[in-house]
């Protein structure tokens, strides 16, 4: 796109603004901390703005931004040699941020479970299950084959199921499975 920069400019900005809430949510799900997630979003905005000539208006702005954010995250990780998220901050911050949110205990458990996933599985299930991308779009964003994305999503689901089953039993107290063991303990 070469001609008409002045007329394209405002709508580029508008489309970018429209995609920002979801972009932040994506960054937050990957990193788990508001401050670092927002730093990454800011870097992404700068990168995207500098590359706006490469963006074709009318194509998927959200997918384009997600790709930039993801590339930026992994390139920063390579440079700094650190993990996607620091586990301590992940959970501690979220407890402080949304103490009164409905179902927050439940969500905290889920968030912690999500955190235990390998990064490639986590991003796959987020893109498909929360960001609203198709498997094809997710594969393109992650730069991998369609089959790879599908298998990552499946493995992520399986693992979350396993984890949540365990934590669910703990959270809700004695139930049909654990109650007999509990009563036996009292008898002896």
């Amino acid at each position, binding site marked *: 796109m070469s001609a008409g920069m002045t007329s394209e400019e405002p709508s580029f900005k508008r489309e970018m603004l429209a995609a*920002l809430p*979801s972009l*932040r949510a994506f960054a937050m799900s990957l990193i788990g901390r508001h401050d670092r997630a927002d730093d990454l979003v800011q870097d992404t905005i700068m990168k995207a703005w500098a590359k706006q000539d490469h963006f074709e208006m009318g194509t998927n702005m959200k997918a384009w931004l997600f790709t930039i954010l993801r590339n930026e995250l992994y390139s920063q990780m390579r440079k700094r040699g650190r993990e996607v998220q620091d586990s301590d901050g992940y959970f501690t911050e979220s407890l402080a941020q949304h103490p009164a949110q409905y179902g927050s205990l439940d969500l905290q458990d889920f968030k912690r479970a999500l955190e235990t996933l390998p990064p490639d599985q986590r991003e796959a299930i987020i893109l498909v*299950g929360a960001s609203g991308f198709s498997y094809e779009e997710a594969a393109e964003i992650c730069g991998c084959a369609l089959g790879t994305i599908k298998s990552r999503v499946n493995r992520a689901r399986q693992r979350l199921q396993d984890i949540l089953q365990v934590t669910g039993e703990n959270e*809700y107290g004695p139930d049909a499975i654990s109650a007999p063991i509990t009563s036996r303990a009292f008898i002896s």
Partner: protein
Amino acid sequence: MTDDHGARHQIARSARTDNPNAQIATKLRALYLSVQEEAIPDRFLDLLEKLDAVERQSMPDIAE
């Protein structure tokens, strides 16, 4: 146990056993939406305004 603790348990249990994937999908979306529904922080609105202003004044020359 007929209080809402028991009811909650029952709901969680049936969601878990009937369709664990649906429960995971619901929670994943809830978590995502909790961030997506926040207002866009001012820092991003300011940043976009600045980028826009710079570009209007000069030729786009902010690529690294």
